[in-house]
């Protein structure tokens, strides 16, 4: 069968759920706040991204919006940013979740969060991640288990980030999400029970033919041979967003590319990075 290289309709993986809608009037105010209030965004988790993922905290244990490295935080306080965002406060109150941390996450045009697992460094308690897309576009999507999910705005989404996943905003404009990490409680259970179907937002990625992968590796290898290492690595990391691939294969491809170029230290560096990104270290 010919591989068209296109995604096909699919159902949501169990790690993602489209939950209750948000009132249109509140949604408009949320969007307005997201586009006008935040500034001085912070780039954190640099190893996990290509530089275009910025965050600011709304709820944390210091009240400082630029303190964005998440950790367990049973009794978070509002940051100075949240005090200037009444619509976000209204939504948080409506949801009534037992929050651990809440952030705004801004993904610029061309930005990628590479394939990874979250929560590995946190305590072993049940927690969940809730996304509220505030500003988005059709080229911004989440990849999980070979499935592409565009988190459309106007509703709340749940993500289980302990499975390997990645996020991109290929062409922009910037995507802004409210991201809430919360502990399990009745409010979360009720929210999670509001799951809805969103067929338009989900597509299965194609499985690559062997010669397609070889072609991509050849392009990346050509870039590396010319001295464009970062572009070579990016070219292979991006395959996670184009094809349904086994866990960690993009990291293996980079290590194999460097091994073929007799750059053993670089190959080893990427083997180690794979273990860190996927929580195997």
């Amino acid at each position, binding site marked *: 069968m010919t591989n068209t290289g296109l995604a096909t309709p699919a159902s949501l993986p169990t790690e993602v759920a489209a939950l209750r809608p948000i009132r249109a009037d509140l949604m408009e105010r949320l969007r307005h706040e997201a586009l006008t209030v935040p500034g001085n965004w912070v780039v954190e988790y640099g190893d996990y991204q290509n530089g275009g993922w910025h965050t600011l905290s709304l709820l944390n244990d210091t009240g400082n919006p630029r303190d964005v490295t998440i950790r367990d935080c049973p009794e978070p306080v509002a940051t100075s940013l949240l005090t200037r965002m009444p619509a976000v406060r209204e939504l948080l109150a409506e949801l009534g979740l037992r929050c651990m941390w809440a952030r705004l996450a801004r993904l610029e045009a061309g930005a990628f969060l590479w394939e990874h697992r979250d929560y590995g460094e946190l305590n072993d308690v049940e927690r969940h991640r809730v996304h509220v897309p505030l500003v988005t576009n*059709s080229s911004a999507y989440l990849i999980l288990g070979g499935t592409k999910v565009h988190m459309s705005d106007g509703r709340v989404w749940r993500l289980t980030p302990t499975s390997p996943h990645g996020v991109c905003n290929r062409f922009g404009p910037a995507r802004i999400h409210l991201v809430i990490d919360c502990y399990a409680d009745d409010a979360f259970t009720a929210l999670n029970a509001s799951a809805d179907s969103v067929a338009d937002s989900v597509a299965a990625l194609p499985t690559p033919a062997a010669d397609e992968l070889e072609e991509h590796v050849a392009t990346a290898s050509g870039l590396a041979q010319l001295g464009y290492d970062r572009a070579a690595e990016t070219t292979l990391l991006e395959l996670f967003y184009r094809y349904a691939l086994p866990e960690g294969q993009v990291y293996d491809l980079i290590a194999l590319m460097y091994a073929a170029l007799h750059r053993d230290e670089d190959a080893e560096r990427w083997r180690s990075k794979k273990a860190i990104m996927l929580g195997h270290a």
Partner: protein
Amino acid sequence: MSTLLDTVAAANLPHQFELLEKSVEVLSHSPAVQSLHVRGSLAAGTADRLSDLDFIVAVHDPSFASFIQVADALMTAELGAVLPGWRDTIVAQMGGLGYVYLVADGRKLYQVDLYIVPVSRLDTVLARTTAMPVYLADGATSRPHSHVDWVINSTLERPHTPSELLVEILVIGHMIRKRIARGQRFIAYAEMFALHTAVKNLIKAVLAPGSSFYGWYQLPEEVGSTPIGRQCLADLERLITGNAVPTGGDLAAALSTALTVAERAAPTILEPLRPAIDAYWHYLEFA
């Protein structure tokens, strides 16, 4: 005093200068790149906030073919090119290969032109255009490499594929948007004709790929014998009978018609580009 003025000047630098710095940093990262020059309005001192970044990239002859092969991947991975490079058929033939990229940066889409030239021909190119160096590597010049001629000639002789013609339409649309914003009516007229020609070429490439007729000749005979061909020609007719000097509305309508033609005649080339085209529309509104 001058420090204060410098601060004000720096704060008001056109956004392209950030992209210029980033592009120079990216492109010069390879030892295969001997030099980078800017040409066009940047070199002439007439740049404005809508100006392209127009580079001459001199690549050592033995690496020229490899560089051409990975240029799209490099521009996508490092500079966020929204579409594959369009092999520029407007730029003068100066001894290399020209590609046009649309790069999303901030809230705008910028045109970045790369004229990629083997080092052995750089002097010839510089003699034919006004250019300013922005990066010069240490080291010797290249000796001519016989493979370079073949790469350039075979690339220039190869007709554009339908997918490349669709990219051409979008790139020219972006150029026209800039002309309209500047009030450059004569150039807008000329580029609108180029857009119509690209749509005609797309129709021919898909529906009459073996055509031996030149340009606009024999279109009804070759294309118009089927319902889909007649629909495409009706769309083309609508395009060419629109305003000769386009407004923003005319341009949007023309691009919509061009995409309708592509969807009808070659949906498989349109589908993979849909997210990029969505973004393109967004940026065009902000241009």
